[in-house]
């Protein structure tokens, strides 16, 4: 089940949930908030979402990932609000019997997330000022 949270993402719990005896492979991606972007030093990051639509999109993405790949489970959690540097803004956890589909599914889900889910990231710079990260248009009107 997809989640939007406003505190630390409990990655250990997600991995524990995914680790079932029929699953030999767990692939995890963690997006951490990073202290630089395109040569500028970042001191703070904030995420905003159209929450009901984002939650529905993440749930749909979990289901679509499960149907496209030979995997047992896919869980996606995204954090909103301020995310301190080096903490996780997003976690994708995929479990499968075999490792190749686990890797492929985790990567595909993460790429899809970045271009289909209504979430926005704002970077605050050391030199002052802030900017919304250049993103991907959701769809042509």
């Amino acid at each position, binding site marked *: 089940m997809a989640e939007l949270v406003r505190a630390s993402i409990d990655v250990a719990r997600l991995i524990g949930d995914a680790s079932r005896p029929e699953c030999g492979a767990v692939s995890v991606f963690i*997006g951490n908030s990073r202290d630089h972007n395109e040569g500028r030093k970042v001191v703070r990051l904030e*995420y*905003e*979402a*159209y929450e*009901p*639509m*984002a939650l*529905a999109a993440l749930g749909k993405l979990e289901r679509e990932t499960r149907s496209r790949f030979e995997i047992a489970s896919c869980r996606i959690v*995204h954090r909103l609000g301020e995310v301190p540097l080096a903490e996780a*803004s*997003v976690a994708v956890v995929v479990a499968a019997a075999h490792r190749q589909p686990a890797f492929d599914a985790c990567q595909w889900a*993460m790429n899809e*997330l*970045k*271009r*289909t*889910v*209504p*979430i*926005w*990231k*704002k970077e605050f710079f050391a030199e002052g000022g802030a900017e*919304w*990260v*250049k*993103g*991907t*248009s*959701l*769809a*042509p*009107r």
Partner: protein
Amino acid sequence: MQIKVLYFAQARERAGRPSAPLELPEGSRVADALTAIRRSTPALDPLWPHLAVAVDGALAPADQALREGAELALLPPVSGG
């Protein structure tokens, strides 16, 4: 009829508010709402080519009909992750 317009990220900052009611003639479509918003909120102009529109949480084409109480969201390019 009245709908509710939601602004996110850059759109929210440029509009100066997270949401606003919008009065429209009966039978209006998404395109009519956008024309009205664009006229009333010129600060959104630079974003306009990049915005997507959702109605009640689903991406909506310009010719989609609106109903009383609909929630129309202006969505800048997304950057989650």
